[in-house]
């Protein structure tokens, strides 16, 4: 599952951070950044409702391959700037986090 797949499956829009060829290694759905930091997995797809710079900074610390913000939340300009600076693809999705989890799971199950 790459960035294009994520955008398509989650009805999302790539809003910052640029595209990449990395693929999903693990999926983390969480709004608490300390919980995200606990993960040891590589190439994390971070599904969150946290529309803040810190979601991107946390993603960078754990080497996440993409961050998806849900419910079509407005994304602060600074968040997009941080995503661009750190080169982390930032996707906005109108779906709920729960729905995203289901769709990602279904997609990965078919891979």
């Amino acid at each position, binding site marked *: 599952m790459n960035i294009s797949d994520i955008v398509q499956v989650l009805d999302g829009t790539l809003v910052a951070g640029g595209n990449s060829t990395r693929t999903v290694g693990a999926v983390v759905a969480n709004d608490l*950044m*300390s919980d995200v930091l606990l*993960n*040891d997995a590589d190439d994390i797809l971070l599904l969150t409702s946290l529309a803040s710079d810190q979601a991107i900074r946390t993603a960078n*610390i754990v080497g996440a391959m993409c961050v998806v913000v849900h419910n079509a939340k407005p994304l602060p300009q600074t968040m997009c700037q941080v995503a661009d600076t750190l080169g982390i693809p930032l996707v906005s999705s109108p779906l709920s986090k729960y729905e995203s989890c289901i769709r990602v799971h279904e997609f990965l199950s078919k891979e």
Partner: protein
Amino acid sequence: MEYRPTILTGGDTRSDDQIIAAHNKSVRRVSGPTLPGAEDSPLVIMELLQRLRVKDVMRSRNIISVVRTDSMRFAQNLMKRNNISGVPVLENKRLFGILSVNDIIRALEGGWIEDSCQQHMATNLIVLEEDMPLAFAIKYFENYTFGRFPVLNKDRDLVGIVSQRDVMRVLMKELTDELSRLEGKADIGKTSEPAKSEGALPYYSMRQFVVVRNDLSHAGKAANEIKKMLSDAGVDKKLIRRVAVAAYELEINICIHSVGGTITFILDTEKATIVAKDSGPGIEDVEWACQDGTSTANDWIRSMGFGAGMGLSNSKRVADTFDIKSKIPTGTTVMCTFMLSKGENSKPMCNIQKGEVQ
């Protein structure tokens, strides 16, 4: 009561300053001196917005208010006399509600202008805290349509009112002063290269970052810089991640729980060391604070994705050694070290298994 530092692990009772001094004398450089990243230097105005607090701009004197039993008519006349569009409902510094000019108009139209204020005041209030950065107040003005916000102190007493005009007035003055002060200065960055002590061997890298209270928009920059330093030095990826996680957690802790402090990062041929030092208020029960899930964070911090009570325990989990000292009210110092040469770079950060719901 006499303060006795608490050492949870390790056995090094030296202060962080002593530790840093020891590094200066004994370690060897593994990379060139790291200079503050000019490309990351925040703009002057952003610095200002983070440095200034709500209490720096609020009006704290002559707050015009009513009490709950005052009539709406009294409030109307008070607003008219003072040419203001809202009054707090206040008793013994405790804020009970706010009456706006819209409430008065509705009372006039509805025929309840003689009712008491407590019957029609707004009680679901959006308030600011006096120690919040000014940037946060400006976001409030963007997010809400209110023209002014009540400002509370730590005891939840009303200590002032802040309006957009107050923000602009102080900001313009401070900006002018700041720009004047910076004239001729090249480096306006927040990070600083520490002074090299005389006679110190140049075989190490050290960098210090200032962490500002409640400045969540910049929190994490130190950790990202540290990650970059390690990456540039060719350190193992797993180890980089462990160091970055600790640096990030400690940086966030200083930001949200203290009055501010510094993150000092030292890299030598044997180990990476993070010293996180704040200037207060200190931790009452350090052992309790280091347990998973213990937190004193407020709702604001939680709304920003932090305050889960995992900061210290996460840092301890990923570090090879973890020491913490805390004294009320002077502050807390945490030191984490990570061995570069040990074969522990793949030390697991948690026991979460693949597929587990988090």
